[in-house]
């Protein structure tokens, strides 16, 4: 297993490198001299212009420019943004990235969980009309025009039902005079979610080999302890209402993004379950006298899950795309919206920075999903 992980890691690093090289040549391929674009920003002082020129080797031959560019990338320098001058691209990304990551992760995981459970139930109980409706519904959600769907969501839930805010990611009045900035809270939310998930995973892993009663008892206790830990961290921290405000503004965008993506997963799960149910080992599981629930979850679903995870891997790119659209419609200031605004304003360093960020995130997501798949399917660890 470890060998597989290392191998995949190596492959992803190479792919990342190829990607960054392609990004650079894209930059070069622009009509006109990109060097001029960088330098033509009237807000730059003469010294900064010279510094940039030297840093990016803008007056040097191609291969040298490429090497310098890659070098600065590795050092974490993506240039200075035109629009957000004088902030560096990296600082802008650092500010916006946690928000996009939170949105992306939440939507991705939710759409998988929702899609998978729905598909599982759908496959286990058959019914003609039911399936027809869900197929049509699924296809509609799959092909609906995302911005339009987002707008419909806003119209229905924000305007008509007044359930959720219309947009933006925080309520400005609430935050006036707040001791911390939004990013601080975002990062705390991300971290506590990550730690909680990790703890949960470890609990599940550790209790695998115990006998039935002990297993259930310990897992229940584990969940309670984790919950208690979360409360213990958040309640006395004083920033809870800010976190809740953020979560409140997050609900509608997450709902939109999740709904669009879960349909594909649901239909695929259903088909996969139906095919898996015909396998011999399912009959063997029945013969062993296992209860229905165990057969459905431990045997059928566990195997049916595999092609769904594969499609999950491909859906990462779609969720990232959907995220850009969702952020725009909801005026939610994450990396997606930033990238778009930069594109409209022709802020080339920011655009390239956004591309690098998104691409790296996509590749990382891929790596994690690949490893998860290898964990779930022992047969793949030998390829």
């Amino acid at each position, binding site marked *: 297993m470890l060998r597989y992980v290392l191998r995949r890691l190596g492959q992803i690093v190479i792919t990342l490198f190829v990607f960054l090289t392609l990004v650079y040549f894209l930059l070069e391929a622009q009509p006109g001299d990109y060097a001029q674009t960088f330098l033509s920003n009237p807000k730059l002082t003469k010294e900064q212009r010279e510094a940039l020129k030297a840093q990016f080797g803008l007056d040097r031959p191609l291969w040298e420019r490429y090497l310098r560019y890659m070098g600065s990338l590795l050092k974490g320098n993506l240039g200075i943004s035109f629009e957000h001058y004088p902030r560096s691209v990296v600082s802008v990304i650092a500010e916006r990235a946690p928000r996009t990551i939170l949105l992306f992760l939440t939507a991705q995981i939710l759409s998988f969980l929702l899609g998978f459970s729905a598909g599982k139930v759908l496959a286990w109980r058959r019914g003609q009309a039911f399936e027809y409706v869900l197929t049509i519904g699924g296809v509609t959600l799959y092909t609906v025009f995302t911005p339009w769907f987002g707008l419909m969501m806003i119209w229905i839930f924000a305007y008509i039902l007044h359930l959720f805010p219309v947009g933006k990611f925080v309520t400005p009045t609430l935050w006036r005079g707040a001791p911390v900035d939004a990013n601080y809270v975002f990062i705390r939310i991300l971290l506590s979610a990550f730690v909680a998930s990790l703890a949960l995973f470890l609990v599940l892993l550790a209790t695998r*080999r*115990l*006998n*039935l*009663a002990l297993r259930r008892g310990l897992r229940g206790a584990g969940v309670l302890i984790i919950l208690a830990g979360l409360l213990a961290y958040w309640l006395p921290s004083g920033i809870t209402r800010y976190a809740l405000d953020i979560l409140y503004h997050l609900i509608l965008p997450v709902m939109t993004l999740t709904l669009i993506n879960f349909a594909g997963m649901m239909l695929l799960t259903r088909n996969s379950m139906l095919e898996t149910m015909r*396998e*011999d*080992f399912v*009959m*063997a*599981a*029945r*013969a*062993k*006298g*296992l*209860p229905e629930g*165990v057969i459905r979850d*431990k*045997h059928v679903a*566990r*195997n049916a899950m595999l092609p769904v995870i594969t499609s999950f891997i491909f859906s990462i790119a779609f969720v990232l795309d959907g995220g850009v659209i969702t952020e725009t419609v909801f005026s939610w200031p994450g990396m997606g919206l930033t990238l778009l605004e930069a594109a409209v304003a022709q802020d080339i360093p920011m655009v390239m920075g956004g591309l690098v960020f998104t691409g790296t995130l996509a590749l990382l997501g891929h790596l994690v999903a690949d490893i998860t798949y290898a964990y*779930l*399917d*022992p*047969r793949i660890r030998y390829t």
Partner: protein
Amino acid sequence: MAESILKIENFTMHYMTKAGEVSAVDNVSLEIRKGESLGLVGESGCGKTSLAISIMKLLPENAVIKGGHIYFDGTDLVPLSEDEMRRFRWRRISMIFQAAMNSLNPVYRVSDQIIEAMETHFGNIDYSEAREKVANLFRLVGLDPKFMDQYPHEYSGGMRQRAVIAMALACEPDLIIADEPTTALDVIVQDNILRELKALQEKLGTTMIYISHDIAVIAEVSHRIGIMYAGKLVELADAEEIFHHPIHPYTAGLMSAFPSIIGPKRELVTIPGEPPDLLNPPSGCRFHPRCQYATEVCREKEPEFKDYGSGHMASCWNPLEG
């Protein structure tokens, strides 16, 4: 005489398909005594597997039991609900499936799958004790316990077969049904496994039902042999009797269709025609269209399944002499 552990009385089961009702098992009656091994032989589609899965009531959704009883150790299994059947499955009756390769779940370790069966029927068991048991089972079937924690795809075909046998023995059942346990293996492994199965059976005193289309295989391992044709049990007798004094023409046909490596070369006598369509089985005796001894009555009435002396049963209007 040992008591009977399985008694099937006039059991009939049909499959409801889009094309119609398929008469898969028709009015089958047989009895097996404790510790005995019964071999069921027949062509593909003759109903032997259907009968086997009926005993464990592992029937698919479109299967309907039309009548009869299956008495296992005194209890009639036919009217039992799924929940009630689960207590019998694996714990009292277990099964070795055809193409056992695929009856192991590919994503779990083999040891975990065997322990799962034990856990279900023996309740709260200590994990390390369970592992001990699995190790013992492995040794019993001729597998090295060091392979215990591997995944099914890491095993060879023969190993997987043995693992499945070990799994079938896990809950110490009274009856094991082995459905073509060696068909998917090459001849040498087949031979080994058969020998070991027979030895195991004698050692543990488990009752066995072997199902195969290969009469040579059946002859090796069974005390009694039952011949099935088109959903009906046409002959049932001790192994010796079947071979030397077959009563039903189909049985005789099976014997002569079997070439002998030693002995004089003779022409292979095959049984003409094809097995009937069970959607619309032939009237009277189902074998009559292919039988060279068929007479009027064979076409009109179904022959009774009766005893021809010392437990040799057959259903035929024109039984063979000698």
